[in-house]
């Protein structure tokens, strides 16, 4: 105990028995910030589930608005007012010059006019404003932000799961078994970590190309090292704990000791680390998509929105930048705060 007092024994808990997760949930419920952020995260998850099912933001690619239409609260773009500088150059009374004699296409004009009249082109009128405005092609920024959320969060989540699985299994093996296996895995770890992360990502990207699945794979293959280190240290610590020796004494097998005994004691640490991964990988995916190394051209991500935003900003069109930033900041902040609350709820020191 590092405080100035000896360990103070709390009176035993009331009759209803609680395991770690139930206790943590109870503690989490009393953390207001944690619950609010959980709610925000839940809203986003619902949103991206709807989006992936095609119920929301399905037609984000359709050009439904005037290019660079401003957000609704700003009102439509002002029409071109003021005198046309070239107006004086052309006299208003001038008759259009008849060029039929020298124009080679002249005989065809009437035919084309007839044909054109026969073809129906349904063109719905383009919107002047949209809730979050439109991008330079007239696409709905709100839809793009939602779809982008789906992609970015999806990638972040799955890459986190992948990195967690790889890191946990390798870390458990390395920490528990030790010896030659541990040495080998440490060598693999050293090889991966001696190359700076971004460079490793670039190397993989150069070789594997673009695509959502590829990005997930790349991020998972580069990111597992952090979890490995953590899990390995935990397994080394726990392998020497007496409850594991006790399990050995009663005859439990190695596999049982690794995954039935130790893993449940490590899972809360893994969970918190995985949450940190989600945030980190979302941010990484955004940067990769921005650079053109992430999602393919026909998909949208917050990163691609930001790459368009750079040029737009110079022209004074700030809404796509704002939309992407607000969506991303809201989700990441909520998720980070939730992770903090989760860590506090699971902290065994408070038990």
């Amino acid at each position, binding site marked *: 105990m590092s405080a100035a007092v000896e360990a103070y024994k709390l009176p035993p808990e009331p009759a209803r028995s609680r395991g770690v997760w139930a206790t943590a949930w109870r503690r989490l419920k009393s953390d207001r910030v944690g619950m609010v952020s959980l709610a925000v995260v839940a809203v986003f998850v619902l949103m991206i589930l709807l989006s992936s099912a095609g119920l929301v933001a399905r037609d984000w690619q359709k050009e439904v608005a005037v290019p660079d239409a401003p957000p609704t609260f700003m009102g439509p773009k002002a029409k071109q007012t003021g005198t046309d500088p070239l107006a004086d150059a052309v006299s208003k009374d001038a008759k259009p010059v008849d060029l039929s004699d020298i124009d080679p296409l002249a005989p065809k004009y009437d035919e084309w006019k007839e044909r054109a009249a026969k073809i129906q082109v349904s063109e719905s009128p383009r919107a002047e404003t949209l809730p979050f405005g439109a991008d330079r092609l007239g696409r709905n920024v709100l839809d793009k932000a939602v779809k982008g959320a789906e992609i970015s969060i999806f990638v972040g989540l799955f890459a986190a799961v992948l990195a967690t699985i790889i890191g946990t299994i390798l870390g458990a093996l390395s920490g528990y078994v030790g010896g030659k296996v541990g040495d080998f895995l440490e060598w693999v770890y050293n090889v991966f970590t001696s190359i700076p992360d971004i460079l490793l990502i670039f190397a993989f990207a150069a070789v594997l190309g673009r695509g959502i699945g590829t990005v997930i794979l790349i991020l998972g293959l580069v990111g597992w090292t952090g979890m490995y280190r953590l899990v390995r240290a935990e397994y080394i610590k726990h392998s020497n704990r007496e409850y594991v020796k006790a399990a050995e004494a009663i005859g439990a097998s190695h596999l049982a000791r690794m995954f039935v005994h130790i893993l449940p004691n490590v899972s809360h640490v893994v969970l918190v680390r995985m949450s940190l991964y989600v945030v980190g990988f979302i*941010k990484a995916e955004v*940067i990769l998509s921005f650079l053109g190394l992430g999602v393919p051209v026909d998909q949208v991500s917050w*990163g691609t929105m930001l790459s368009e935003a750079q040029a737009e900003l110079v022209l004074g069109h700030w809404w796509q930048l704002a939309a992407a930033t607000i969506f991303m900041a809201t989700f990441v902040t909520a998720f980070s705060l939730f992770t903090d609350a989760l860590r506090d709820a699971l902290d065994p020191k408070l038990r």
Partner: protein
Amino acid sequence: MIPTLAGVILFVFFLFKFFGGDPAEILGGLLATPEQIQAIRQQLGLNDPWYVQLWIFVKSIFTFNWGNSWATGEAISNIFRTRLPATLTVMLPILILETVLAIVAAMAVAYVRGSLTDRAIMVITTIALSISFLVYIIVGQWLFGFYLGWFPVQGWSDSFWTNLTHYAVLPIILAVFVSLAPYTRLYRSFFLDEINQDYVRTARAKGVGENRVLFVHVLRNAMIPVLTNLALQLPGVFVGSFLIETFFSIPGLGREVLLAVNRSDYPVIQAMTVYLAVLTMIINLAADILYRAVDPRVVLK
């Protein structure tokens, strides 16, 4: 160190060999005829067995003879030589400034720990961290460069001094500003870990005031993980600047690597990867030695 280096070389070689596209086709371009491609293959030695190719690869690493970039034909060693100064001009000031400022900020926050200020700063940093670095650069560049005109939006010159005082200023300020949030949080956790240790209680029992406890006793111990962190960051400096260099058109190594990725310029990427790995190992070795000076419990192996 040597087994790791061997591992990195093998890794890079096999990654590009088995997962990368056919170098001959890439070099040949879209319009190359099959005969041209074959000729290139012959020239690159791609028809040799893989262990011969591996051996050539290893040789080229140790003789620093990397050949030329596939995209521009420039000698790769030349690329390194000319781009490195630009990267360092920007990244070293960033590294120094962000470390010093983060330590100061973290100590200040540790000093007011538990108070409302502490909580507020934690929330602000969380929000600040949730905004992508890209946004900061886009907005920063637009605001200070374009709109207010205080700094050049982009550019680089041949004079070191002009670069440092003129072109590098905005990128450095933006990068340091963005890194304040994460590093303050990290260093704050280092300080708080130390404050709860037994030896702090002993110091107080001796009559040491809170200021001295924080700035002498705790700081000295917290410097150990801070230095570890610095050592871990240093290798990333050489490439981590890629975003800044791209935005501000600074001809540095990071931007070079990014260009190479987009152009499938394998030799450049391979060379960077291997050399940075070597650099990382050297830095780690140096860090280990530095450790002994900082943490007396460490035994030099």
